[in-house]
């Protein structure tokens, strides 16, 4: 079993490298921005407790920019990127479908409808000042998936095909309602559209605090289910003969993945492509075992979205590109290159 041992060693090395990559991405994320903060000042603010790091200092205004604008945004990008990637990896495993993404079962359409309803008819905040839009998106995403699961379960014994088809039906239906409402209220079109393209603008740490608990629960659950996803890979029948309950396990995985998606969508809108490109890129590096693909997707997704956000903030500075545009513009060609390379290997 020498081969298994060396593969394990290599994969652990890959995890270490990936974590280093996240740290690097985060550093770039806080160092780069439209406001001209000195690098040494930022490094001093971050690592002043380490002797010899950075001798500059920030004014109190610069300090506010660092701690209340850049830092929470970078952290939010980490969480959203990790959530979308791990959710995509899990959906792809649970449905044995490489094209599955976090929005497969109606999460996007549900969230879109929830957000549109609030933007057009709702108040901006509850009476205590809590913003309603994230909560409506969150609830909408989960409701969309629940509806798809209920319909899919009633029509075909919870097979993957029945579920995916139910997801398609639910997504079309909810999108139709959303489009209808949107067309009746064209004055809000721009705001709805901006939400759909995805964005990571934040006001301090509140968004991070809002989604962190859900993100942590979902990510931990999914990482723990990596081995189960591998067993599901042989099909429900064989998985059952190996002592597993495929329908129940898939329900738990889909619930956790949907929770991660809903958390991401609640604060960032619909950012596409992350949930597909990152897991596939990870598979090209470490192989297809979900025990490694699932955790590494979370790590890779965090780094990827932080860097995509840096591009979104700086490419047309002082303006901003929608991050969904960046993930697709950067992601699609990178993905095509990866596929070409892997095509030559296998």
């Amino acid at each position: 079993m020498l081969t298994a041992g060396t593969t394990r060693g290599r994969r652990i090395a890959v995890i270490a490298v990936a974590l280093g990559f996240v740290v690097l991405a985060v550093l770039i994320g806080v160092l780069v921005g439209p406001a001209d903060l000195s690098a040494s000042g930022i490094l001093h603010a971050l690592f002043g407790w380490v002797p010899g790091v950075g001798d500059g200092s920030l004014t109190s205004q610069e300090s506010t920019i660092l701690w209340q604008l850049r830092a929470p945004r970078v952290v939010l990008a980490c969480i959203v990127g990790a959530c979308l990637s791990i959710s995509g990896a899990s959906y792809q495993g649970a449905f044995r479908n490489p094209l599955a993404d976090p929005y497969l079962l109606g999460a996007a359409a549900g969230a879109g409808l929830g957000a549109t309803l609030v933007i057009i008819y709702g108040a901006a905040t509850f009476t205590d000042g809590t913003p309603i839009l994230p909560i409506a998106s969150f609830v909408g995403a989960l409701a969309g998936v629940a509806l798809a699961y209920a319909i899919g379960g009633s029509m075909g014994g919870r097979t993957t095909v029945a579920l995916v088809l139910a997801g398609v039906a639910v997504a079309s239906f909810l999108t139709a309602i959303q489009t209808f409402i949107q067309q009746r209220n064209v004055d809000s079109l721009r705001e709805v559209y901006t939400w759909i393209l995805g964005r990571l603008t934040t006001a301090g740490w509140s968004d991070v605090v809002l989604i962190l608990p859900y993100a942590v629960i979902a990510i931990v659950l999914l990482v723990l289910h990596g081995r189960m996803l591998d067993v599901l890979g042989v099909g429900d029948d064989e998985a059952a003969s190996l002592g597993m309950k495929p329908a129940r396990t898939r329900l738990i995985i889909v619930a956790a993945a949907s929770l991660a998606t809903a958390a991401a969508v609640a604060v960032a809108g619909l950012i596409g492509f992350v949930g597909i490109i990152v897991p596939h890129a990870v598979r090209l590096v470490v192989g297809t075992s979900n025990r490694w693909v699932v955790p590494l997707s979370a790590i890779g997704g965090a780094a990827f979205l932080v860097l995509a956000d840096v591009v979104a903030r700086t490419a047309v500075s002082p303006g901003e590109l929608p991050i969904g545009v960046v993930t697709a513009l950067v992601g699609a060609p990178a993905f095509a290159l990866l596929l070409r390379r892997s095509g030559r290997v296998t």
Partner: protein
Amino acid sequence: MTLELERVAVTIDGCTIVGPVDVIVPDGGWLGVLGPNGAGKSTLLRAVAGLVEHGGRVLLDGRDTATMSRKELATRIGVVAQKPVIPDGITVADYVLLGRTPHISYFGSSGFDDLAVVGEVLAALDLTGAASRRLTTLSGGEAQRVYVARALAQEPTVLLLDEPTTSLDVGRQQDVLELVEHLRRERGVTVVSALHDLSLAGQFAEDLLLLHEGVAVAVGSPSEVLTEEVVREFYGAEVRMVNVDGDDVLIPVRRVARDRRAAW
């Protein structure tokens, strides 16, 4: 482990697909399940493995499998599917490791014991050299050994094989059946296999069960079940029984040619 089927029947939408079947496979025995296409061989095996709802009882050493959890059942019965689903890019070692699933707790991960079992099974089936290869790059005969290896990694006492020789050339068919015979003798596993080839079934299985449209029409030793009359009646085939080196071998003969000669 003695495997006993007591009036086992599978009914789907009010239509009985198989059964009721009564048969006892002694500890370490080999029951070959025969029947034309669509006779219900696979369904019967699925019922024994608890993968499809069924009437009647399946008993392992007298204990009803309905009282066992999915997981416990999977440590006793290993199944080799007719057309296994191969996960993309999986290596032979990782595939065989999946057989350890019933021995690992829900959130647990495979430990040294599991890897040791996988290593032992790979060695026993002469697959050690292929451990890190992708399963999809193996030949048909090698792949079939890997499927058997995964089932053996479950450390079962009963092995169910659904047409293990389909799509193999005649040499590899003999290899696979010799392997099963070897495992049966070395490890004492009880074997139930659906088999397509009547001659091979007669040479390897100790007992045969012939299904026709879901009904068990003949049970017994190969010489009792495999007669020219039975094959003509239930397979609609014209065969001759020839004794070769003490084994009964079935040889198909041409019906059309014979009729034509008679007419001329």
